[in-house]
């Protein structure tokens, strides 16, 4: 079987890995910039590091996902080390600077490379994820790697696929006196880790929660995702750090993600049942209430690509031969 890495390149993008229109070859001659991630303390001992609310592109070095730094007595915990080795190194240095301690543990919330590919900057034994995430990375890691090198070129220098320990289970862990509650969910992908910092009520949603940035669906199961959102909604919390988009202190992001996914689901159903083709579905007007959501058209068209052929196979009637 020759399913080459190339074969899965465009489709497996995380929050935006589909190739951009600029020819990739040009990038090879450009000098990649230097990552300069900034940490904003959003709760006592918790820093959010913002990604760009954009698709993965050479211009942003792939740094589109949010990362989180948590201080503990034993050292720092990093959630989602970013898209590349050098980003991982920058996050590591940042974590050491703001906490004054070394990084003792890294969590990768799910397989997508904008979240997972910085793992090589850390001791592999300290990098942890759900078993499903490790399994998915074993399957897709090389394909992601080809795709990211194609788009990000020099930014990716030295980046290899580092497998996290696939040993995270749901429940409470205490690191350096800090109590974290881990949730083993799925729906955005087949393994989505969410983390609650008990002391501050900060919920780290991973890509189960997007905020003012359209949700990406390349490995999504929408029903499963909606179930996971219900679950997170039931967890008492004061703040949500989404996988993409700004901090949510007004309890809006979970509802907004649910609203978008429900709309996408209904819109795709209606499009199939009214005989529209994929191009027409991709041109569906975006409701006014989503006007401020970044990259909405882009993610809408990606979702059409992810779901349309399968939905047609389910919804269009079989005709006897």
């Amino acid at each position: 079987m020759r399913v080459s890495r190339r074969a899965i390149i465009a489709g497996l993008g995380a929050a935006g890995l589909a190739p951009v229109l600029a020819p990739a070859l040009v990038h090879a001659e450009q000098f990649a910039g230097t990552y300069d991630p900034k940490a904003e303390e959003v709760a006592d001992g918790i820093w959010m590091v913002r990604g760009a609310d954009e698709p993965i592109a050479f211009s942003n070095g792939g740094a589109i996902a949010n990362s989180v730094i948590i201080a503990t007595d034993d050292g720092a915990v990093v959630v989602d080390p970013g898209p590349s080795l050098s980003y991982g190194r920058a996050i590591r240095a940042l974590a050491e600077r703001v906490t004054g301690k070394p990084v003792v543990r890294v969590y990768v919330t799910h397989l997508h490379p904008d979240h997972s590919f910085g793992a090589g900057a850390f001791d592999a034994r300290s990098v942890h994820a759900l078993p499903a995430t490790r399994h998915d990375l074993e399957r897709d890691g090389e394909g992601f790697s080809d795709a990211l090198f194609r788009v990000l070129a020099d930014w990716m220098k030295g980046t290899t696929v580092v497998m996290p320990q696939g040993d995270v289970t749901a429940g409470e862990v205490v690191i350096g006196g800090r109590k974290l509650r881990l949730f083993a969910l799925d729906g955005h992908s087949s393994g989505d880790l969410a983390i609650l910092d008990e002391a501050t009520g900060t919920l780290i949603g991973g890509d189960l929660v997007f905020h003012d940035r359209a949700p990406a669906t390349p490995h999504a199961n929408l029903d499963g995702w909606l179930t996971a959102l219900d679950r997170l909604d039931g967890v008492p919390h004061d703040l949500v750090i989404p996988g993409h988009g700004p901090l949510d202190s007004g309890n809006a992001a979970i509802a907004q993600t649910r609203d978008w996914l429900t709309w996408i689901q209904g819109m795709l159903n209606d499009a199939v049942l009214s005989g529209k083709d994929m191009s027409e579905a991709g041109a569906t007007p975006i409701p006014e209430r989503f006007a401020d959501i970044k990259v909405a058209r882009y993610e809408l068209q990606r979702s059409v690509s992810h779901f349309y052929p399968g939905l047609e196979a389910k919804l269009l009637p079989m005709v006897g031969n």
Partner: protein
Amino acid sequence: MRIANNILPAAATLVMALAASPALGGELPADPLGSPMWEYHAEKLFTGGPVVFDSRVKVILPVVAEDQHVVPVTVDARKLDGVKRIVVFADLNPIPVAIDYRPMDAAPFVATRIKLDQRTPVRAAVQLADGSWHVAGEWIDAAGGGCSAPPLSRVRGDWADHLGELRGAAWSEGDTTRLRFGFRHPMDTGLVENIPAYNIETVRVMDADGREVASMDVYGSVAEDPAFTLVVDRDGPMEVAARDTSGLEFAGELAPMSGKKQTAKP
């Protein structure tokens, strides 16, 4: 993809060298997309009339080729009268032409999904009754492997279990009827080791009296499980029939889609 990279540019050079001979109905216009393969394809495809780039031909492509195995292409030439043929092709694909559509009693509108092997122009060439060709298109990026990777059903090994299954329906739009239908078929390109070319090669639409209202030649660069949208100038049930390269025929009648909503969730 190696094929396209290594052989086609060489062929293009050769053709361009020969292209001094005046083309068909006149000079070829310069390609606004700057494709290295424009003249090569134009010489082969555009027999019988002059060629113009025409913005009345709409080629609708997604912002990005999210999955280069399944890239939706819609061509809408309803602003032109007397359309005889619509040829959809991708300059840099190893199998450039995807479909050659003849809307006899149908609107000059067609949508399908194609495979792309690399960044390439995707174009529609529309021929009118006077023989003239009206061309439009755009570049679209694709990472590669669309034509030289095996189809999913081959990887899963279940392609034969569902071969030729037809799904689809008809939607009345006043005097015209929209047809949306698709066949299960691997659409093997012949560019994957040990898998010979095997694809649906014709699709025809007949009205209730058995009169052909539209027909299409289909090539291996159309996506696996090929799907089509057509708009025919008729009301009532329509029969669609496809034949593949091994001579198998798949056919069925597309019934009007009723108002009742089914639900299935992605």
